[in-house]
């Protein structure tokens, strides 16, 4: 039985996390945080970190471009970690469950985004009256469907946690769990393929090949951070050439350019830490 304190703490966390997801995106919204926080609250940080990190790697590149709905891997990560800890069967068990849970919960995300149309229409109504305070309130109400769409599955999933785990252990055949495990290992291909579609692969494919070769052939000596730094160097060379080939550019341009590129350099320094 999952204790009421745990259920309350995780509900509070997922409410904060979904607000983070739609606003400042500072971390709690990510599957890796979901796993880690759940693990911490339920007393098994290590399992949480592994489930969360694996889910995170699986879903790199999967983002809500243009507000599209994507599977709710945050809640998937929370529930996967929780079930792994309840069942005591290790991180792999949780990872296998997290993906189908995330897929299933896509529907609730869609429902929340639809529910907010109600507040939009109420805002229209107040706007016609010139009642700006009424309009303001509707946006604040808009948080409610977002929060409910995440808190409800977490509460239900945890209250019936033991029963769910028992059902999984009884009814789900071993080959299916093996298949889920393998699927988890190849699923990152989706996020990577989305990124390849999204980024200008056709213009800059040589850098894609360089990155692949470095990690495929030299994975013992290279790391993702190493490749990122090489990529940064290549990006720097590109910026220098781009600035050179535009000599007729108006004066404020180079100055304005310096700031964002500096910021990027800063981020890499943080990464180094």
């Amino acid at each position: 039985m999952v204790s009421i304190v745990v259920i309350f703490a995780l509900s509070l966390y997922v409410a904060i996390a979904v607000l983070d997801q739609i606003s400042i995106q500072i971390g709690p919204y990510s599957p890796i945080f979901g796993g880690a926080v759940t693990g911490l609250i339920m007393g098994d940080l290590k399992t949480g970190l592994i489930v969360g990190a694996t889910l995170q790697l699986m879903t790199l590149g999967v983002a809500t471009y243009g507000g599209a709905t994507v599977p709710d891997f945050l809640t998937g990560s929370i529930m996967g970690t929780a079930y792994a800890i309840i069942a005591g069967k290790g991180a792999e068990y949780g990872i296998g469950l997290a993906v189908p849970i995330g897929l299933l919960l896509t529907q609730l995300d869609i429902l929340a985004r639809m529910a907010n149309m109600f507040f939009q229409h109420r805002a229209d109504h107040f706007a016609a009256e010139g009642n700006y305070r009424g309009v303001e309130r509707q946006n604040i109400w808009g948080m409610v469907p977002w929060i409910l769409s995440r808190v409800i599955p977490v509460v239900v999933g945890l209250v019936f946690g033991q029963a769910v785990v028992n059902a999984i252990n009884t009814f789900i055949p071993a080959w299916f769990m093996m298949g889920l495990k393998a699927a988890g290992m190849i699923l990152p291909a989706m996020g990577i393929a989305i990124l390849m579609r999204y980024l200008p692969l056709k213009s800059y494919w040589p850098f894609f090949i360089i990155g692949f070769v470095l990690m495929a052939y030299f994975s013992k000596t290279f790391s993702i951070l190493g490749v990122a730094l090489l990529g940064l160097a290549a990006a720097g060379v590109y910026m220098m050439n781009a600035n050179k080939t535009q000599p007729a550019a108006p004066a404020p341009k180079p100055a304005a350019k310096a700031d964002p590129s500096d910021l990027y350099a800063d981020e890499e320094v943080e990464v180094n830490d």
Partner: protein
Amino acid sequence: MTKLDAKDIKKVYWRNIFGLQWGWNYERMQGLGYSWVMMPVLKKLYGDKPDEMKKALKTHLGYFNTSQPMSHLIIGADIGIEEATGMQDEEAIVGLKTGLMGPLAGVGDTLFLAIYRTIIFSIAAYMALSGSPVGLLLPVVGGILLLVLRYWFTGVGYKQGARLATEFAEQMKTLTNAASILGLSVVGALIPSVITYTLDLKYTMGKVTLNAQDMLNQIMPGLLPLGIVLLSYWLLGKKSMNSTKLIFVLIALGMVLGNLTNIVNGIAGLF
């Protein structure tokens, strides 16, 4: 005309980073949030002019959707215009919003969703897999830096106005291209590191055992991950395919690959 001060701009900034998407909905997307973000300025400019206020509310409740970090440029420029001319030139305001939201969404999503997130979270996740929660600080530190950048964007939009905000967006394209080079190198590197599936197939013929994965490695390490990624890339190019459908394709593929030994033995048993 009423003048705005630094306090008003700050209020809009705070509302923008937190509340632009609270009311996100399929009909107008960030429209409800946009009006909420603008409200401190609207109250000050049109608080005692009910007709202008109605017009402004209607305009800002309209369809709007862009990348969150880049929205600050548009909102900043919008404030600048309304401070100067109020709602007189409604078309200019709507034109600014709808004209900039598309291109800025493209730049912003590439920089802040695709590239930034991929790099920060892949590094954090690898640290976590080795048991260290320290990597979780990366997105937090990066996120705070982004909030500083977003504050700066608001000022750029407000001070430089619509035309320069547009030019600034143009300049961002060079940066986006450069960042894409960085992003694609990392994306290439992720393929052999993140996709960890290896074939567990051995044929024993007499005294010789052939390991299928070793044979693949001799052709090229990372061949299988690359193949699965290229298959996914190709599938995503199809009109009837989307990322959710692709997940099901990959799960089906995983079902086969995860039970490959049993399947092969089963087939071998038939003969």
